[in-house]
């Protein structure tokens, strides 16, 4: 590639955190046309859960990546990769991190997808920007693995990490003079101080998550439920509905062949109601209580136990009797009266939610 006779164009991966925001801003401030992209995997922490839960403040949360794009003044597209992303989660070539987080494969996949994007004006991008910092993450942000990301994604030297560029070989945009390497940075390690200092310098005073944590696959409670889902089905598979349901409610598995999903507040109950056509479900009749989906096929005795568990989470938890209505998938209901189970009677290993 030769020198450009036009303004260089770059696409920046925007997670909603500080680093990607800074990386995009650093390159934009050198006169490069920068657009952002945020990939929707289904496992994003914000979005689904915030939409379902009703906080006391009833505050509608913002989409962090969109908010970042607004703050630094770049266009941004959100791209749904949830279907193709399944293969990354289920069969990661480079394996998982501490939990079920395929961070290295994930970054390779996202950089590769970013390369193929076109700008809002229908034009291809000249290079890709990420907010990676050498040594910041044990799995995906080491110098060895960052080289793998560049190679396996197909980006090669068209991948620029502005926050750590001085610790890495010069990329194409630097060699071609599209960006001035001298004005890039040499951050490394887990300290966040250089990022905070740069944010201040660039006039950025607010950001959502200083250090990652934007993916449910790094959440211990969530991945425990995902692993349980795979174990119970005997195969590693999921769809978007599964991904969302694992974020909602209290998950209790009294036996391998059935699980209870119990709403924890009204927003979750309302959301779970939308699944009544797909699952048998239970609700409390004599007292105020949550909705409970039954995932699986419990026996009659097990339904009795499930009813006692649900009663324990209702306002009748200290009552002698609680009436529970059980509705099967065909819509046929029956009511039974049960004594609420005491909290100590629910073995810890049944509970999949922290």
């Amino acid at each position, binding site marked *: 590639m030769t020198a450009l006779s036009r303004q260089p164009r770059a696409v920046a991966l925007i997670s909603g955190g500080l680093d990607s925001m800074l990386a995009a801003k650093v390159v934009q401030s050198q006169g490069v046309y920068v657009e952002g992209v945020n990939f*929707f995997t289904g496992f994003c922490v914000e979005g689904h859960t915030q939409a379902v839960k009703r906080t006391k403040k009833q505050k*509608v949360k*913002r*989409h962090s990546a*969109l908010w970042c794009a607004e703050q630094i003044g770049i266009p941004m597209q*959100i791209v749904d990769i949830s279907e193709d992303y399944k293969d990354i989660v289920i069969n990661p070539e480079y394996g998982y991190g501490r939990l079920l987080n395929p961070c290295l494969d994930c970054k390779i996949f996202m950089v590769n997808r970013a390369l193929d994007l076109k700008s809002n004006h229908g034009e291809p991008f000249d290079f890709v920007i990420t907010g990676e910092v050498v040594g910041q993450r044990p799995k995906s942000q080491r110098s060895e693995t960052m080289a793998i990301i560049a190679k396996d994604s197909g980006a090669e030297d068209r991948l620029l990490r502005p926050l750590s560029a001085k610790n890495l070989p010069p990329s194409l945009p630097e060699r071609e003079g599209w960006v001035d390497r001298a004005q890039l940075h040499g951050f490394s390690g887990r300290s966040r101080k250089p990022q905070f200092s740069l944010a201040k310098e660039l006039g950025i005073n607010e950001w959502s998550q200083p250090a990652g944590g934007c993916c449910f696959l790094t959440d211990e409670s969530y991945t425990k439920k995902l692993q349980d889902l795979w174990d119970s089905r005997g195969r590693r598979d999921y769809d978007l509905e599964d991904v*969302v349901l694992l974020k909602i409610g209290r998950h209790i598995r009294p036996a391998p062949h059935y699980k209870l999903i119990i709403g924890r507040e009204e927003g979750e109950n309302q959301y779970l109601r939308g699944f009544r056509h797909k699952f048998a479900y239970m609700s409390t009749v004599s007292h105020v209580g949550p909705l409970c989906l039954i995932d699986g096929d419990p026996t009659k005795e097990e339904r009795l136990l499930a009813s006692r568990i649900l009663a324990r989470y209702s306002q009748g938890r200290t009552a002698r009797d609680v009436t529970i209505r059980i509705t099967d998938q065909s819509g046929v209901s029956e009511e039974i009266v049960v004594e609420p189970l005491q909290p100590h009677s629910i073995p810890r290993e049944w509970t999949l939610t922290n």
Partner: protein
Amino acid sequence: MDANELMPGAHVLDTKGLLCPLPVIRLQEFARSVESETEVVVIATDPGVLADIPSWCRVNGHEHVSSKQLDHEFHVIVRALPQFIDS
């Protein structure tokens, strides 16, 4: 203005049941296909659209016209502008 008061030819995008950011993604897919200024009403059940769609409009050069809650639905009206330019 709500979905019942739209200009003739306006497009209705039903995203009921979808959680954010999927309504925004559906709007984005539609907006990328318009060849002339087109009014579109996004009907959603996720209140997140009230913040996300205006924000998406601001960063991508579309016009957020209005937002309204009707019972359990949210109607967000957007004027989508053609963006692709032959170069």
